[in-house]
């Protein structure tokens, strides 16, 4: 027993690989001396990079910001986290990393490399590109008297989902996509000057600005809002969003809650890949209505469903068209089709890179308006039937 205990103790001392220092003791930090970094910014500067860390020492404490420029992210970050003002900044709680557009266009691989190599950084840290400005200025503009910039950035994830205008990919997802497809999508944001809802927030508001299609060392292009929506729909990253659709003289705001994409390859008899067929089924609910329309009417609902299908179809088609235009399969259609028909894809005779630019892609969307939330339009139990309750009632009266 004693020998076993001593052996186990000795082995534990050898477990130093997870620690940056000689022993695990070097991981020790005084809790009260910790500066919790939640947002990191990286911009280009004359020296190389300008790194900023933004965090708090406690829930009630004001957010602190430290920045430093240096030749590389690693070197600068090391100097920056070395007890700013006597405190030790830890990066393990970093939620988002904002990088300026200039830096992203040339040095995205360096940013990802730092996140992957530095054990304290989490691989699921969200990465965002700041368009039309620097990340530093944006964060300074976001921070208010009682609103830390970190909270605003962290809240963006949910806002983007509700707006259907993007998805904050993590560093791990971006790095994996770069490794597999040679390109990756990165969420873009910009600061917008809007009317302050309350005085204690910053001067700027964080707004989504489409997505960037990135290579490791270059920004290939940027997707607008429509293309971004289509991309999210096809990638299955879509969570829920509100869309405005015109129906007669009114505008319906529908909440699209469920999207099921189905992408399938179609081959000729001799094994050639003829086209890719994309089918989408969307389920939506009516949230509100601007104008007058009889939401109980079967025709109005059909019009709404068709309008929604058209909106979603155009978004998907725009996203699909953008890939060949940029020369990058950022939707990973090749991967999806290979997973659907691995043998046929292997036997088609031509590499995917040759097929992809000219491959016809058809998009079909079926939309269903599930509920109107009208008081006499209760949810159907046991499956949806044709006609509103009012219509069914009048039909049955007519029949009788």
């Amino acid at each position, binding site marked *: *027993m004693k020998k*076993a*205990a001593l052996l*186990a*103790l000795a082995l*534990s001392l050898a*477990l130093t690989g997870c620690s940056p220092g000689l022993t*695990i003791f070097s*991981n*020790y*930090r*005084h*809790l*009260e001396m*910790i500066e*919790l970094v*939640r947002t990191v910014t990286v911009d280009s500067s004359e020296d190389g990079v300008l790194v900023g860390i933004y965090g*708090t*020492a*406690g*829930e*009630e*404490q004001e957010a602190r910001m430290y920045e430093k420029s240096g030749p590389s992210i690693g070197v600068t970050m090391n100097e920056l986290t070395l007890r700013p003002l006597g405190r030790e900044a*830890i990066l*393990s*709680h970093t*939620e988002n990393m904002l990088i300026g557009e200039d830096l992203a266009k040339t040095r995205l691989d360096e940013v990802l490399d730092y996140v992957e190599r530095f054990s*304290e950084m*989490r691989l699921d840290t969200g990465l965002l590109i700041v368009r039309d400005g620097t990340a530093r200025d944006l964060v300074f503009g976001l921070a208010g008297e009682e609103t830390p910039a970190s909270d605003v950035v962290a809240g963006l994830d949910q806002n983007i989902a509700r707006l259907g205008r993007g998805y904050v990919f993590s560093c791990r997802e971006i790095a994996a996509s770069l490794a597999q497809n040679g390109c990756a999508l990165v969420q873009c944001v910009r600061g917008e000057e809007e009317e302050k809802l309350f005085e204690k927030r910053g001067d700027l508001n964080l707004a989504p600005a489409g997505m960037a299609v990135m290579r490791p060392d270059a920004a290939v292009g940027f997707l607008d809002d429509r293309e971004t929506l289509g991309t999210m729909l096809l990638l299955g990253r879509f969570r829920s969003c509100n869309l405005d659709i015109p129906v007669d003289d009114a505008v319906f705001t529908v909440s699209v809650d469920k999207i099921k994409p189905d992408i399938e390859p179609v081959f000729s008899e001799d094994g050639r890949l003829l086209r890719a067929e994309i089918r989408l089924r969307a389920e939506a609910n009516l949230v509100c209505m601007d104008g007058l329309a009889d939401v109980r009417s079967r025709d109005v609902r059909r019009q709404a469903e068709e309008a929604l299908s058209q909106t979603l179809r155009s978004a998907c088609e725009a996203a699909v068209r953008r890939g060949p235009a940029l020369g990058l399969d950022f939707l990973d259609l090749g991967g999806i089709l290979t997973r659907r028909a691995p043998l046929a894809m292997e036997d088609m005779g031509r590499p995917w890179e040759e097929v992809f630019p000219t491959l016809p892609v058809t998009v079909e969307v079926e939309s269903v308006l599930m509920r109107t939330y009208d008081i006499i339009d209760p949810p159907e139990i046991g499956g949806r039937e044709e006609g509103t309750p009012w219509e069914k009632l009048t039909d049955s009266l007519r029949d009788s």
Partner: protein
Amino acid sequence: MTRGRGAPAAPEIASDAAVSVAALEEVYRDCYDFESREVHIGGDVRRKARLCFIDGLVSGSDVAEQVIKPLTDPERFGAVTDAKSVIAMLLGGSVYVYTAKSRTKLGELAEDLLNGFCALIFDAERTAVTFEVKSQQRRSVEAPKEEKVVKGAKDAFVETMKVNTTLVRRKLRNAHLKIRQYKLGSRADTAAALIYIEGFTNEGIVAEAERRLSGIRTEGALTSSVIEENIVDNPRSPFPQVISTERTDKFCMNLLEGRVGILVDGLPLGFLAPGTFSQFMKVPEDHSGHFIVASALTLLRYFSVALTLLAPAFYVAVAMYHQEMIPTRLMQSMIEAKQQVPFPTAAEVIMMLLAFELLQEAGIRLPSPIGETVSIIGALIVGQSAVEASVVSPVVVVVIALAGIAGYTMPNQDMGSALRLCRFFLVLAAIGFGMFGVALGCALLLYHLSGLESFGVPYMTPFAGSEGRHLSRALLRHSMTDKKDREPELKTGDGGEAGL
């Protein structure tokens, strides 16, 4: 009756009564409660015998009414002239005592006196007749104080072994229930009983229990530790290896499971062996309530073991070394609270653990009403006031309180104490090595527990050293309507299959 090692050798009784009394008086020299008086048989002053007894151990009225009165009655003993006939009449029931024994050895005679007998010594015959006239001054059977249940029997063991064996016998009316008596202690001569069901309880376990009871080397078995530490396989382990209970129903249920029981005169407890870890997670109430509820509560107790052991150590490890494991919001609150506290996390936790132990110890030692007050005031002081005074962080108070409360759910106090001790070691390991230390401590703890055996049965059965299919028996309580298996390690005489 079997005698433990170290008992005194019994000298032969002297040839005449006076000498016998002298020898007996030599044995009981300087014993103020030893009494000796002459009795005239049949009221005849020429026919004398010596009546000896130990005052307090015998009932005075019983001696007078049941022994002296008939013995001095001329109508009964007036016509009997020789001592042999008197002895024969006494052994034949001429006095009103239900137990009468003929003794020719001084040692046996001396022992009978200690067991509540009075002795009538006949010098001419070198013989004494002893009568059982025990004093009935004993604590009556009461409800259990430590192991309370709502739906269950309300009789607990008392200090008198004979009462305890009677309570067991009443519950298990079976001729195969064997009660073997032993004498423990070279000086105290404490009576102990080994109880088992013949033909059902594994013979190997019975033989091992016999061997260990006979091998006890002690001057007196006056405390439970004397028994436990002398019969367990690994006395240095802080974990209890025999089950001790004050409940007669629990004692009997375990006998029916195939365990052996040990009762000791003077201890209001019954010991059961073998004791396995899973048995310490069960309470008698499990068999009174619904089996689903009982199963859920059993699982809760296992969760409590993990909580009471690991909560402080885990907190220390993550707060000192692995801050990345704490959710951001919680981390912010912890940093905020910690900034006002002058002590490092390690000192905070150790201080709180010690304060918790002090409070507990004070609550136990003080009389009940004062103890409760001390606990309440202590909790207020250590908890609220300490936080307000920024001596400790609120999170530390929460963690220690949580661990403490979880520890109180242990059905067995010895198990609870062992876990508390291990909690300290795990905290120290966490202070030194963070999460590695906690993992290492847990590994060593499991290593220790897995290596323990109780009377040849692995301590961690059915978790270790057993088949996996018996796991549910340890973790859950099966319905009484289901046919169930006994613990296979107990190797009972019925093949391990319990009847309905």
